[in-house]
């Protein structure tokens, strides 16, 4: 039972990080390899805000959420906007370079030491007994709920709101969408803002649960096989991918050898690339398009 709970937590983390990749890819066909650094940045922003407003945890959290949206927006407007129409691989490289830049800046601003935003917020990460001998930390439980909430929110947004539908249209056929009067740059900017927000949530929750240091960026990369297995342009795929990879990882730890857990996601990924390169829920023609 505990194993199931552990899988659920890891699925939530991977799905949240994965949503960041998917949102940007789906709308603008750019693979954002700075996702790990962005979630780390948002987590550090939370840490700084928590230090500033120690007494008002809610305002620190709200501030961090707002800042995450703003960071995504600014990044698009200042940087990624210039990459529209360039080679896809050039845009991807820009995100890699952005990751390097951000990491250097974060070391400069926050040093490389472990930061613990939870303490600054004045909260306790107390264990919750969930019955049947299952226990999880309260932040871990929160992570599951946040992941569900964000995914439900995203599904509703894309299905029922005007801008959600427009963003989908842009993702499917930017030319046609532009002819219909949809402002491409607005759609792309919103995708970046949303992706930074949902990835940033993963970063904040991870930091609240077990602290924050330079390795978080690499965790962002670890979630990368998840979205590839699920399909780069599908939110549903990200959930299924997270489920597959997280289960494989946790079961490998539990049943085989913990050492294998590190390679498992990539083995799953290679198997998927060999059989169905566009992922479980991805769209096939993407391969021709890029």
């Amino acid at each position, binding site marked *: 039972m505990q194993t199931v709970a552990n899988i659920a937590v890891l699925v939530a983390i991977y799905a949240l990080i994965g949503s960041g990749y998917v949102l940007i890819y789906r709308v603008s066909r750019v693979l954002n390899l700075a996702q790990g650094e962005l979630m780390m940045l948002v987590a550090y922003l939370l840490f700084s805000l928590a230090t500033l407003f120690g007494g008002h945890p809610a305002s620190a959290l709200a501030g961090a959420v707002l800042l995450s949206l703003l960071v995504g927006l600014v990044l698009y407007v200042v940087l990624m906007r210039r990459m529209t129409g360039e080679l*896809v*691989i050039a845009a991807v490289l820009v995100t890699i370079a952005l990751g390097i*830049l951000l990491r250097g800046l974060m070391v400069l601003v926050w040093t490389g030491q472990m930061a613990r935003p939870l303490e600054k917020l004045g909260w306790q990460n107390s264990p919750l007994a969930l019955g049947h001998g299952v226990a999880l930390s309260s932040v871990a439980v929160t992570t599951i709920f946040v992941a569900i909430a964000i995914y439900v929110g995203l599904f509703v947004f894309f299905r029922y709101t005007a801008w959600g539908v427009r963003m989908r249209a842009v993702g499917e056929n930017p030319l046609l969408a532009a002819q219909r009067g949809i402002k491409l740059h607005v759609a792309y900017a919103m995708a970046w803002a949303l992706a930074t927000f949902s990835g940033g949530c993963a970063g904040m929750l991870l930091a609240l649960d077990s602290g924050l240091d330079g390795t978080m960026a690499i965790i962002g990369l670890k979630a990368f096989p998840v979205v590839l297995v699920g399909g780069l342009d599908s939110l549903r795929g990200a959930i299924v991918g997270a489920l597959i990879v997280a289960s494989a990882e946790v079961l490998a730890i539990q049943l085989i050898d913990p050492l294998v857990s590190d390679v498992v996601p990539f083995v799953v990924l290679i198997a998927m690339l060999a059989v169905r390169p566009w992922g479980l829920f991805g769209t096939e023609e993407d391969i021709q398009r890029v």
Partner: protein
Amino acid sequence: MAYASGYFKTDYAMELRLIETRWQKVSAAVLVLALGVFPLISPQVAIGIANQVFIAIVGAAALMLLTGYAGQISLGHAGLLAAGALTTGVLFKELGATFWVTLPASAVVGGLLGLVFGLPSLRLKGLYLAITTLALHFVVAFVGGEYETRRGFSTGILISPPAIGGFALQEQQHWYYVLLAIAVAAMLFCINLLRTRTGRALMAIRDHDIVAESLGIPVRRYKLLIFVVSSTMTSVAGCLLAYYRGFVSIEAFSLYLTIDYVAMVIIGGLGSMLGAVLGALFVITFPYVIEGLLRVLPIPAGIANEMFAINYAAFGLVMILFLVFEPLGLVGIWRRVRNYFLLWPYRQTAVGGGGG
């Protein structure tokens, strides 16, 4: 590409010369002289940097062939470098093999791995190909890591310097000439490849693979071929790196190394061998230049440690600036500067750059 008037070609063989005019002969001679004299007058540190540049040129040229000319994007470059270094390390440690065994062995292993890395290219393009090669990188890293741990070489394998006829290659100066020769040979190989049938076929595949196929080019075979050629070169570079550094450790071949090499071909300028050279030069010397700059500027000692974060961030920033503002890379800048001086004193917009 005759710069001076009064130079005429009288047969097709003349067109195949790499160095044509007197002006080109003079500049080539100056370059050879400068490269030859450099280690005699430079401090050890500078020779060390030059040596790293030479090895990087071999690796960057290999990646340039693959990505810049054949249009196949690979993020497995560090894995292939690791394969060469590891082959060298394993053969040296387990069998005491000499340089004359390890170098060809690395080439063979690289070639075989190239076949494996190339297979996905038959089905996948662009981003998906990049990701597959990335996944293969992790496989190589895992295998290497397990080997080192299981055999108890967890902190890396120390390798003795290569001995050529009883003469051990140890001094930076000696390495310099050897590595320079290898880098020049690699460049000549690539340039020759590109001006002949193979190179044209690669560029045709990059620009229009379906058309290339209907012109009688076996596209799949050429894709595999270029992966094998590029991987062999890369693996040889890995072998050289192992000997030059005197150690092999799988941790030295992280994803960042791949990024360094991708940066070399992008910053240098895709689709140009000169770009591979300039890119290698730029990426290798960049941290030293930044460090030198920071050292010249008055910086309080207390934040000395931050210097390295600045260096790191600056690398990211420069890469972004290149990608956004100079997609043609250093070669683009070089051509503009060259054309400016060629046409001086006449003001004219740059003419199409065919060379490189």
